């Protein structure tokens, strides 16, 4: 007979429960010998699989074959944002690196990427400068709060837009406040996040004639930008690409929820 809590213990082991449930389960484990044994078994099984598994990488020949096949594909419509094409587009730096060495394919892919949006270098510089200036002056936030319900209303009257605001502390992105800035000749809203040792500024302004490249670099800072509805968002930081992409995902989800209500 299996303990009725075995699935909860497994969820705890897999890191799928919140802190309150975790405490509850830990208390249960103290009293239940069966679940203690289960936890030990789960750990052993994981060690065995992860320790002995052959993490085979895709053969180079396959990589080349796929790169060639994709280069032969007709270009997907660049206007379909949120589609596979724009997923590729957002991944540009990895993508460009991965196809390096396959000359023609690289040229074809880059040509497609470069024409599908007209990135504005001036806008890129403007956003990066604003980020650096805020870091230098130590004036990161005009409103200090981890509460989205404080930060979002604060923008009213101080910025021209009302972006999606949320704290993602559980995912490692702590909202530390908001700031008003001046981007693309308008009052932009800036969300300020702390991610480990990094500060991430997320600028939001009304999308206009200029678009930013989905992923770009300026003087060592990474910029990831995206558009939801008529709002242009751009996250700037010295954090890695993956980390910026993860924050983009979280904010996109939030923005989609916001517009759905």
């Amino acid at each position, binding site marked *: 007979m299996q303990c009725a809590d075995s699935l909860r213990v*497994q969820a705890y082991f897999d890191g799928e429960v919140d802190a309150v449930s975790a405490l509850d389960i830990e208390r249960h484990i103290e009293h239940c010998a069966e679940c203690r044994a289960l936890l030990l078994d789960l750990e052993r099984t994981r060690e065995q699989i992860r320790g002995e598994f052959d993490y085979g990488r895709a053969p180079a020949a396959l990589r080349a074959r796929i790169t060639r096949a*994709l280069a032969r594909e007709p270009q997907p419509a660049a206007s379909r944002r949120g589609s596979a094409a724009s997923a590729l587009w957002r*991944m540009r730096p990895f993508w460009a690196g*991965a196809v390096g060495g396959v000359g023609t394919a690289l040229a074809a892919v880059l040509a497609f990427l470069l024409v599908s949006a007209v990135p504005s270098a001036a806008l890129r510089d403007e956003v990066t400068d604003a980020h650096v200036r805020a870091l230098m002056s130590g004036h990161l936030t005009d409103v200090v709060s981890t509460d989205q319900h404080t930060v979002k209303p604060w923008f009213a009257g101080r910025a021209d837009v009302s972006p999606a605001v949320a704290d993602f502390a559980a995912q490692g992105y702590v909202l530390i406040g908001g700031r008003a800035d001046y981007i693309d000749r308008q009052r932009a809203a800036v969300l300020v996040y702390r991610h480990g040792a990094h500060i991430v500024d997320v600028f939001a302004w009304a999308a206009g004639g200029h678009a930013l490249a989905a992923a770009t670099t300026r003087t060592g800072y990474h910029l990831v930008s995206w558009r939801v509805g008529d709002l242009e968002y751009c996250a700037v930081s010295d954090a890695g690409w993956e980390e910026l992409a993860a924050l983009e995902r979280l904010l996109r989800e939030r923005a989609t929820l916001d517009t759905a209500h």
Partner: protein
Amino acid sequence: MLPYLDAAYRFARWLTRSSPDADDLVQESFLRAFRGFDGLRGGDVKAWLLTIVRNCHASTLRQQQRRATVPLPEELEEAAPEGVVATVPEPESASLAAEGERTLARLLARLPQEHREVLMLREIEDMSYREIAAVTGVAIGTVMSRLARARAALRARYLESDAGEPRAVR
């Protein structure tokens, strides 16, 4: 998408249990992803891509089943004469390193596909229940119970194989 090529390939290897088939499956999946047949909802590219790999594999299987005269791979294996190579003991150096992995690979391969794939996605690809549910197209509760059964089955078989095969003195 290409950053997830290794993950797609690993997953395809486990689904097809053969490298050439995995190559074809991965290429077909990337083309489908690129053409946007299966639109990307939400933001998780890896889960989206693995879902496409899994769907492609399922449709290939259906096509093969329609060609009823083609013998199953297992039958082919049985019909083939015993290979000479198999009876020759392997050099010690190679066999020791590979022993653990081969045992595990063999045990994993014997699990039913729905068990194998949840284990793969959880332990190797480190995906959350929600992502696994998206890839396999079942409810999160089903993911949890399958995962529990798969782990229990693997554990039981591991113990069995440990007891059944005499081990070298360490």
